[in-house]
C-alpha cells in the first residue's frame, strides 16, 4: 500500500500507537496486578509494595480456598451445569430447528411467528420466578438449565444453516428408507458441525458466566456455581468496608484480627481462581469465538 509521509501522517501514527499501547496496558495490567497480589504475603500488600510481581510469595491464600468447603465444589458445579445445560440446549434447539428449516412444513409460518413474538415480549422475571417455584424447581439445577433452553437467536442461526444442507442428500436417504430422526442425526448434524460448534460455544459461555439465576433460585450452598461463589466471597467483606467508611476503624481492625492474616488475599485468590479457566482457554479458543460471531452475524 502506498501511504504518504507528511507531518500529519507522522502525528497520526504517533496517536495510533499511543492509543494501542494504552489499550494493551489497560487490559493486561489489572489482571497481572491482581495475580501478583494473590501470591503475595499480606503485609507486603498492606505496605503497598506489590505492583506487578509478587513479594514474599506465598501459596497460603490458595491453600485456604482450595481446602474450603464450598469453593472447589463450586468449580465442579459450574463445569457440570455448563456441560448438562449446553447438551440440553443443543438437543432442544436442534430438534426445533430442523423441522423449521423445511419449507414444506405445515403451519410453519404460524410457529415462526409464535416464536418471534417471544423475542419482543415476555412475562418478565416475576412470572418466571413464580412458574419455576410452582414447578418445584426451586433450589434445583433444573431452574438454571430449563428456562433458557432455547436461545431464539441461536435457533434462527441453526435454521438458516440447516436450510443450506442440500436436499438431494436427504432425498437419497429417504429413498433408502430413513426416517426424519435418522436423517437428522446421521446426516444433517455432521454436516453442520461449524454452526453447532458456534452455538454450543455461545450457550456454554452463557452457562459458565451465569450467577443471577443461581442467586435467585438456589439456596443450598453446595449447589452454587463458581461465579456465584465468587460474588459472595468478594461481597462478603463488604460489611467490614462499609464500617470503615463510616469511620469505624475499631470494628474494621477487629474484623481483620479475627480472620487469618491474609484476609484480602483470599478475595484476590478467589478472583484469580475464577478467572483462571477463561484466561487459559482464551488464547486457544478465541479464534473460534470470533468465528462463531462471524457466522452468527452473517446469517443475521
Amino acid at each position, binding site marked *: 500500500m502506498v501511504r504518504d509521509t507528511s507531518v500529519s*501522517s507522522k502525528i497520526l501514527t504517533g496517536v*495510533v500507537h499511543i*492509543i*494501542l499501547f494504552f489499550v494493551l496496558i489497560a487490559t493486561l495490567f489489572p489482571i497481572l496486578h491482581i495475580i501478583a497480589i494473590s501470591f503475595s504475603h499480606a503485609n507486603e500488600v498492606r505496605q503497598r509494595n506489590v505492583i506487578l510481581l509478587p513479594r514474599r510469595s506465598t501459596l497460603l491464600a490458595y491453600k485456604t480456598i482450595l481446602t474450603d468447603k464450598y469453593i472447589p465444589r463450586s468449580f465442579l458445579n459450574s463445569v457440570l451445569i455448563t456441560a448438562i445445560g449446553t447438551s440440553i440446549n443443543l438437543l432442544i434447539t436442534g430438534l426445533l430447528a430442523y423441522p423449521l428449516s423445511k419449507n414444506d412444513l405445515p403451519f410453519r409460518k404460524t410457529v415462526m411467528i409464535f416464536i418471534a413474538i417471544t423475542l*419482543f415480549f415476555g412475562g418478565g422475571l416475576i412470572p418466571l420466578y413464580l412458574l419455576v417455584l410452582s414447578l418445584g424447581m426451586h433450589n434445583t439445577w433444573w431452574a438454571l438449565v430449563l428456562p433458557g433452553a432455547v436461545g431464539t437467536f441461536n435457533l434462527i442461526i441453526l435454521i438458516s444453516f440447516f436450510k443450506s444442507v442440500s436436499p438431494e442428500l436427504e432425498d437419497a436417504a429417504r429413498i433408502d428408507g430413513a426416517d426424519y430422526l435418522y436423517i437428522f442425526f446421521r446426516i444433517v448434524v455432521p454436516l453442520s458441525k461449524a454452526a453447532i460448534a458456534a452455538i454450543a460455544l455461545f450457550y456454554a459461555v452463557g452457562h459458565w458466566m451465569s450467577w443471577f439465576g443461581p442467586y435467585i433460585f438456589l439456596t443450598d450452598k453446595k449447589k452454587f456455581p463458581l*461465579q456465584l461463589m465468587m460474588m459472595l466471597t468478594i461481597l462478603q467483606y463488604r460489611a467490614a468496608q462499609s464500617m470503615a467508611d463510616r469511620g469505624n476503624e475499631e470494628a474494621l481492625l477487629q474484623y481483620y484480627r479475627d480472620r487469618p492474616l491474609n484476609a484480602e488475599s483470599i*478475595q484476590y485468590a478467589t478472583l484469580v481462581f475464577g478467572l483462571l479457566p477463561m484466561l487459559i482457554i482464551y488464547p486457544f479458543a*478465541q479464534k473460534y469465538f470470533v468465528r462463531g460471531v462471524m457466522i452468527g452475524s452473517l446469517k443475521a
Partner: protein
Amino acid sequence: MLIPGILYYIIFHYVPIYGILIGFKDFKLMAGRSYLRMVMEAPWVGFKHLESFFRAPNFWQLVRNTFLLSFFSLIFGFPAPIILALALNEVRARFYQRFVQTVSYLPHFLSLVAVVGMMKLMLSPSTGFAATVITWFRGEPLYFFNMPQWFRPLYIGSGIWQGAGWGAIIYLAALAGVSVELYESAVIDGATRLRQIWHITLPTIKPTIVILLILSFSGLFRVGAEKVLLMYSPATYETADVIATYVLRRGLLQQNFSFGAAVGLMNSVINLILLVTGNYVAKKISGQSLW
C-alpha cells in the same frame, strides 16, 4: 420432533405471559395450590400496583438513574470501539495488529462477576492499586466503590473496558472489505491519511454505525439489573438504584410479586415501543433497519 421445542416455548415463554395478569391483581403465594389456580383466584385490583410504583418516593430518582446510566454509557461507550477499530486499521504490521486486537477483546470474555470483582479490589482504600497511586501523589485514598458520585463513571468505564475490544471486531470486519484501490487513488490525489480516514474509512462503516446506534437507543431503558446489582450498595442507591434493581428488591426479595409483575410489564412495553420506533426511524433515515 418439534414437540420438545414447542413445549419449551409454551411453558417458559407463554405461561409466564399469563402470569403478567397478577400485575393487576393482589397475588398471594399459597402453599399447595397450582400456579394457574393461584393466579386465577387472586382478586383484581386494577392499576393499584402501577400507581404505587409511580407514587414511590424515589420514582423520579429511579427513572433519572436508569436513563442517565444508559445515556452516558452510550455517549462514552459508543465511540470507543469505533476509535479502536480505526486505530487498529491504521497499523501496518500484521502481527502487532493481531496481537493488540486479540488482547483487546480479552476483557469481553471475563465474566461480569470477575470484572466487578477486579474493580472493587483495585479500588479498595487499603490494598487497591488506585489507593497506591493516590498515596504516591500524597493524596488521601477514598473508598470510591462506595461513593454515589463515583458510581456512574465506574459503571461506564468498566463497561468500556470490557466492551471496546469486542465491539471493534464488527467494525474491523467491515473495514477489511474496503478495496485497496480506493486508498491508492486517494493518495494519488494527494490526500493525507487523516483525509483518507475521513472520506473513505468512515463512510464504509457508516451503515454499521447507524444500525448499532439505533439498536443502542432502543435499549435505552434496558439497563440490566445484573451489573448494577453487583456494583451497588445502600450507600450508593441515590445514583445507582435503577428501575430494574428497585423492582428486584421490592418485587422479588420482599415478595411483592404483583408489584414486580406490573412494573416488569410496563418495562417490557416501553422497551418494545422504543425498539419499534427506533427501527422505524432507522428506516426513514438511512434505509437500513433490523427487518
